[in-house]
């Protein structure tokens, strides 16, 4: 959360109306410079040794050879697990999306209501994001018992932090003119929000909710901690028992599921994009007898239709994760006992070292991921290269990269390089690339097309349009999403534990497994501090850039 500095009363001169003072752009190079500095330190600290990777190529191919032929076990059982996971993830993500909407509206800096509400919303967003779903899971299983309900809630709580944060960013990136004009005619706060902010944010919002659903399906191994089963647990068991044929089969199933989601995301983004066809197709609604009510057109029918489908799916998912309310009265004592174990929090050198290791690795891996992701995103968005098969191919590639769990990358690099931070860094870089590519592609696609059309009309080349029309609108989300990728990588760094590179995820897992909840609490405090710091930098940068 940023400490909002009081706005200095600007002298009423013509100069105060200058669109952007030149020094405002400092964040656009200071933050990349910071990343490069940490990455330099990181490369030294990790002891990157590319020759070793080449030497280990034969070990990698031997490991991969042990994954074929792919098997699926009992297919009906596997499909059952997929559906189970899908319902839990859908319920959790749906709840999170509904809760995030008001939170994001209140946390946005365009919020005009009471300040304490804004601070509370920002606080909730940061804390739910910083607390790993592993911790929510162990608390909720005590409260709600073993089963899908505790799992759905653990997913929901952790997802709120990401969905609401990204929604806030989307709301803030909208041009304020429509909102100001609606406000000027005396609309209520809710009317103004629905008519000017939510409607314009819908393409990005639906895409990020679907992306979170994708993440939640992949991260469903956490459901094993609440006895909810699902495909993530099956995958974890298969890898843990070295049954790589089955593990590969489960990954194939997950990849198919994620590709389907990506397709839905792509189609629904096109369907709900209110302004995607500005100036290219008739946006007029059909006439109705009442001239103040708009009639139906294809876009409106599609939007309403998909909203109904999603609402139906969410309702059905919620019926799949029902729980027994009578249980609550029996569980409060054991929940209190559990929470009492978190006090006093222990922040010992192991926790601090873990945070430091994870942070260095997350920032270094982000630097690699941002560069690689940017290349992928620019190639797959239509601004520079308009070759549909390439863009479709890159989108599919990114989905496939992310379908493979971090632990598999970790195992592959461990086989090639042995245990240590280098293997972990490579695995983390791959997940950062997939994250960054996804975020960047989406924000490039959502750049308002009207100014670009205007530039094209002046005869500017594609490169010129990109440099002067697309890039300046993209920089805020480039910086915001880079910091956010680090934020996610920090918590995904449990992969470092798999390769013996320590990190905060290892400390957290070990403390939970040994019931050392004081240390768990210490880790949580450190995570909140780091996430708040990253958030503060991101807010400062956005203030300077947008």
């Amino acid at each position: 959360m940023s400490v909002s500095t009081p706005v200095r009363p600007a002298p009423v001169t013509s100069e105060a109306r200058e669109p952007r003072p030149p020094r405002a752009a400092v964040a656009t190079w200071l933050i990349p410079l910071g990343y490069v500095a940490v990455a330099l330190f990181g490369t030294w600290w990790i002891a990157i040794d590319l020759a070793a990777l080449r030497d280990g190529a034969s070990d990698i191919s031997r490991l991969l050879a042990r994954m074929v032929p792919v098997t699926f076990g009992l297919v009906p059982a596997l499909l059952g697990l997929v559906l189970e996971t899908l319902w839990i993830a859908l319920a959790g993500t749906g709840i999170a999306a509904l809760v995030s909407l008001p939170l994001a509206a209140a946390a946005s800096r365009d919020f005009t209501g009471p300040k304490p509400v804004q601070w509370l919303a920002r606080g909730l967003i940061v804390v739910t994001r910083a607390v790993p779903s592993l911790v929510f899971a162990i608390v909720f299983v005590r409260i709600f018992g073993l089963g899908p309900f505790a799992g759905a809630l653990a997913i929901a709580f952790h997802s709120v932090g990401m969905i609401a944060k990204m929604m806030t960013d989307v709301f803030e990136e909208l041009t304020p003119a429509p909102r100001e004009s609606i406000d000027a005619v005396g609309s209520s706060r809710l009317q103004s929000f629905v008519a000017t902010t939510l409607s314009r944010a819908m393409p990005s919002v639906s895409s990020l909710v679907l992306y979170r659903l994708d993440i939640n399906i992949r991260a469903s191994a956490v459901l094993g901690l609440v006895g909810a089963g699902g495909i993530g647990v099956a995958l974890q068991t298969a890898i843990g028992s070295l049954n790589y044929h089955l593990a590969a089969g489960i990954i194939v199933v997950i990849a198919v599921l994620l590709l389907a989601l990506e397709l839905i995301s792509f189609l629904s983004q096109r369907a709900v994009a209110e302004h995607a066809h500005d100036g290219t197709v008739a946006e007029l609604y059909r006439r109705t007898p009442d001239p103040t009510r708009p009639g139906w057109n294809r876009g409106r029918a599609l939007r309403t239709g998909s909203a109904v489908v999603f609402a139906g799916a969410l309702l059905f998912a919620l019926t799949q994760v029902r729980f027994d309310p009578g249980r609550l009265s029996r569980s409060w004592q054991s929940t209190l006992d559990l929470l009492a174990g978190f006090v006093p929090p222990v922040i010992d050198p192991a926790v601090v070292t873990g945070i430091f290791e994870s942070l260095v690795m997350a920032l270094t891996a982000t630097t690699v991921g941002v560069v690689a992701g940017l290349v992928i995103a620019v190639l797959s968005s239509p601004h520079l290269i308009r070759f549909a098969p390439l863009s479709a191919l890159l989108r599919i590639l990114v989905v496939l990269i992310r379908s493979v769990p971090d632990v598999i990358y970790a195992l592959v690099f461990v086989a090639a390089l042995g245990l240590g931070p280098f293997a972990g860094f490579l695995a983390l870089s791959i997940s950062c690339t997939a994250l960054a590519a996804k975020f960047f592609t989406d924000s490039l696609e959502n750049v308002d097309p009207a100014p670009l059309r205007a530039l094209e009309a002046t005869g500017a080349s594609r490169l010129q349009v990109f440099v002067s029309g697309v890039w300046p609108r993209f920089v805020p989300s480039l910086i915001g999403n880079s910091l956010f990728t680090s934020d996610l990588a920090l918590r995904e760094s449990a992969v470092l534990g798999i390769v013996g590179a320590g990190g905060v995820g290892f400390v957290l897992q070990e403390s939970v497994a040994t019931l050392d909840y004081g240390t768990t609490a210490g880790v949580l405090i450190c995570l909140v501090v780091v996430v708040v710091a990253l958030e503060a930098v991101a807010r400062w940068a956005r203030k300077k850039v947008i």
Partner: protein
Amino acid sequence: MRLALSLTVSLAAVALVASGCAESPNARGGSSGSDDPSELVFAVVPTEDGEDLAKSFEPVVAAIEKKTGLDVSMETVSSNAGVIEAQVAERVDVAVYGAFSYYLAQDVADISPVAIDQLTPDPGSGTVNSYGVVKAGSDISSIEDLKGADVCFTDPASTTGYLAASAGLIEAGLDPEKDINPVFAGGHDTAVTQMLAGDCDAAFAASTFIDDILPAKGVIKEGDVTKIWTSDGLPGSPMVVGNWLPEDVRKDVTAAMTDYDAVSAAEDGLCEGAEREAPAPWGEEYAGKKACEWGGTGAFAFEPATDAVFDPIRKICDVTDADVCREE
């Protein structure tokens, strides 16, 4: 602004200087797996009942360094698959992990067990058991009574939390998939706490959790649970070395483990400043003596082990024919 700028620039400068001048703390000496290793890589996987893994293995590492004359770099790894794959690629020389991990690893990696946990001066005291427990006062009094019941287990790949119990059920004439309703709770502690909370009628967990850890953490109290079943003894955590190491190195590693015990290691100064008093179960002979924290389970010693020690696990796998037991 100025502050941020100067901070970033100085950070960059420090990074440059550091990368130019000093060797990274993570830089590797020679690569392992060669005929004449210059460094041994020692990997440990946390067991649920150990705390501060890295510290508790320091004396063990010191013993190995002393006997072999080689540097040992220790890695604590959260996944058994990570260590096993590194062993397959001959990039981990010595490893300590669960008995079931050894059962899986011996199939794909060229390794041998050399020693196994011995908790007290009695040989064989490192064996562990799986317990079946119910809430005190439950109608269920034996494993046969579990027909139709909801039963909490740890996870499908846990020996003490599922496989041993599953073999026990089969021997009692029950199908562990059809005759009971299995619930995997994800952890030994969760299986027991959720059984007490009424989520299932019985729970299976490692004996150490029910005898020591959960009572010590105040999670269960004396008389909360009733034991209805105890498994046969199962092997504890083995120490495993790679067969690719030269024979003298393997001999020295084995000697380091079997020549010392926690008390003689302390006498030899392998854990100076970190000694603890010998715990009561070690008997009067060692009462009041200084001992090292000897491995993740705080064992008294490691006793010599051979592949035959792991036969109970093979037997369980034969009886249950479980998915996780299948060999490639």
